[in-house]
């Protein structure tokens, strides 16, 4: 039984947002509601300004605070694969999971649009779905939060469950360069031009993700919250970095 995890090498990430675009296409996201976002931060003041960027998917935590906050088990941890998923048939739209997520990776569709114009009015939804895009992925599994998001529920990154869960048993890594695993590789990993993303089994000592975490001292975000993310970041300090301070920090 695999425990899928992701490693993102911040020294390689160029902030191109190909991952964001690929995720949006793969998962029928509304513009601006990016399950896989690249966040840009400005630090300092002119002339000493530093632009930083930070790719941020759902962390699929080992001990997810969102699961403990959800009163209906709509958000759950799948023991087979270690995914954190949402059952849209159980979600009541209370948004407790959004409040409880330290990483801001969850979205509630029934709000003012993040990006104007509101594309939902151009492609109005059918059968309770939030919209009806002209192109739709073939996968539809509301019990795992896959497909066109219904109204009144919360959504998030699934680690491309529809692709990764069908990977050959026992495989250590899902790599776009390996013909056997190419179609099972998450969309954001597959399209990353500088190959800054790696996806593999954290429970398999032979996996590349484990070697990278060990060799390059992978870190997890906000470890003090106890969530224990399954997404690790590598940073030697040459490129993008885990944000250490923000405008909202005290001086």
């Amino acid at each position, binding site marked *: 039984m695999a425990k899928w995890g992701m490693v993102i090498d911040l020294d390689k990430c160029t902030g191109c947002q190909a991952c964001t675009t690929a995720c949006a296409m793969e998962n029928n996201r509304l513009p*601006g*509601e990016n399950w896989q*976002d690249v*966040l*840009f*931060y*400005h630090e300092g003041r002119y002339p000493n300004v530093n632009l930083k*960027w*930070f790719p*941020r998917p759902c962390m699929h935590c080992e001990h997810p*605070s969102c*699961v*403990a*906050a*959800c*009163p*209906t*088990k*709509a958000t759950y941890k799948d023991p087979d694969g270690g995914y954190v998923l949402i059952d849209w048939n*159980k*979600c*009541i*739209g*209370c*948004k*407790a999971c*959004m*409040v*409880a*997520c*330290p*990483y*801001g*990776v*969850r*979205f*509630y569709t*029934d*709000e*003012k*649009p*993040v990006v104007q114009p509101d594309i939902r009015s151009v492609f109005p939804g059918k059968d309770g779905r939030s919209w009806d895009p002209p192109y739709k992925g073939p996968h539809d599994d509301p019990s795992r939060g896959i497909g066109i998001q219904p*109204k*009144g*529920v*919360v959504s998030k990154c699934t680690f491309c469950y529809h692709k990764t869960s069908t990977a050959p048993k026992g495989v250590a890594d899902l790599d776009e360069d390996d013909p056997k695993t190419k179609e099972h590789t998450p969309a954001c990993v597959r399209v990353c031009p500088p190959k800054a993303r790696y996806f593999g089994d954290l429970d398999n000592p032979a996996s590349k993700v484990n070697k990278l975490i060990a060799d390059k001292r992978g870190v997890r*975000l*906000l470890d*003090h*919250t*106890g969530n224990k993310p399954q997404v690790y970041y590598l940073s030697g300090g040459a490129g993008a970095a885990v*944000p250490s301070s*923000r*405008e*909202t*920090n*005290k001086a």
Partner: protein
Amino acid sequence: MSAATLPRAGSAGFVVGIVGLILAGGFVVWQLTTQGHAAYNTTSNGLMWGLPIVTYDFLLMSSCGAALTGALATVFGLKDFEPLARRATWIALALLIGGVLALFLELGHPLRSLYAIPLNFQVKAPLFWKVLGAGIYGLCLLLLAANWIAKPQAPKPGAVATVAAVAALFVVFTGALMFATLSMRPFWHSGEVPVMILVEALLGGMAFTLLAAQLAGGDEARAAGNAARWVAVLVFAALLFLIGRAIVGLASNLDGLQVWNKVVGSAWFWIEIALLVVALWLTASAGNRASGGMQVLAMLATIVALFIGKYEFVIAGQLVPLFKGSWVHGLIEYAPSATEWALLLASAFLAYAVYAFGAARFRFGN
């Protein structure tokens, strides 16, 4: 106000409540029908719980406080509260119904919540336990209304009143846990938060009860004057929590507590403190406690201050954006929409209509 005029006043209040509910609630329903939840100013960019949740939480916590105020007489036998117990329990029911309206018009799937929460047994979630407790609590209030409030000659309720009080405490603490357990939000994540919320709940419920008793006049008004010293103690405790938390928040370097700068920089924070100080002054001195007008003023000041405090607590806890980067640079900006204000009014009018219905139909005093 004489006892004979009470039912007439209650009937007029019921009509006012229903008309207000139809107007405000109609506007909310119209907005939700045409715009969906986009009629609210909440966003996935970090401000997920807005004024509707503030309204719901304020009314539910005050309801529990009113039930506990009634329990001071029915369960603990405090003489001060005996003439007030029936009114307090009915107010608890009215506030609960008003709060549920605000929640149901905020949830994405309110009808689904009725079966999805109790049937899925997510025992890790404070909200599961809160809803379970609230169900038992609401049932107990209905039983008390049918078997005790509606029957003036009925003896003091025993087991049901005790279960209602325990359930009210349970709802307050599990509701507080939803905030206090979130380690990623230091504004909420604190051991004293459940105690603070209990103090504010009891104070809110007591203030609503004493306000209504003062307006009813007679023996109840005299009892309310005596009981106001309890309000003074609770107001003092609420002030300590508020000022203590603000000082710690301002002094701390912890990322997330910087929101206290915004809270303390707001005029509303100082209005809240001023109102609590006024309420403390009006309820602490025996002379003021004997004055009905002063007590009405004190209870109104308390209720408004507590609502401001609840708004600060729920909203400020979300103002520091968590990993939103380019989408949100600084603290999140939020102001409730017209629909959210209308929902507050609709919930208040519904609670008032239910209360006025009871005031017209039942005899609350001994």
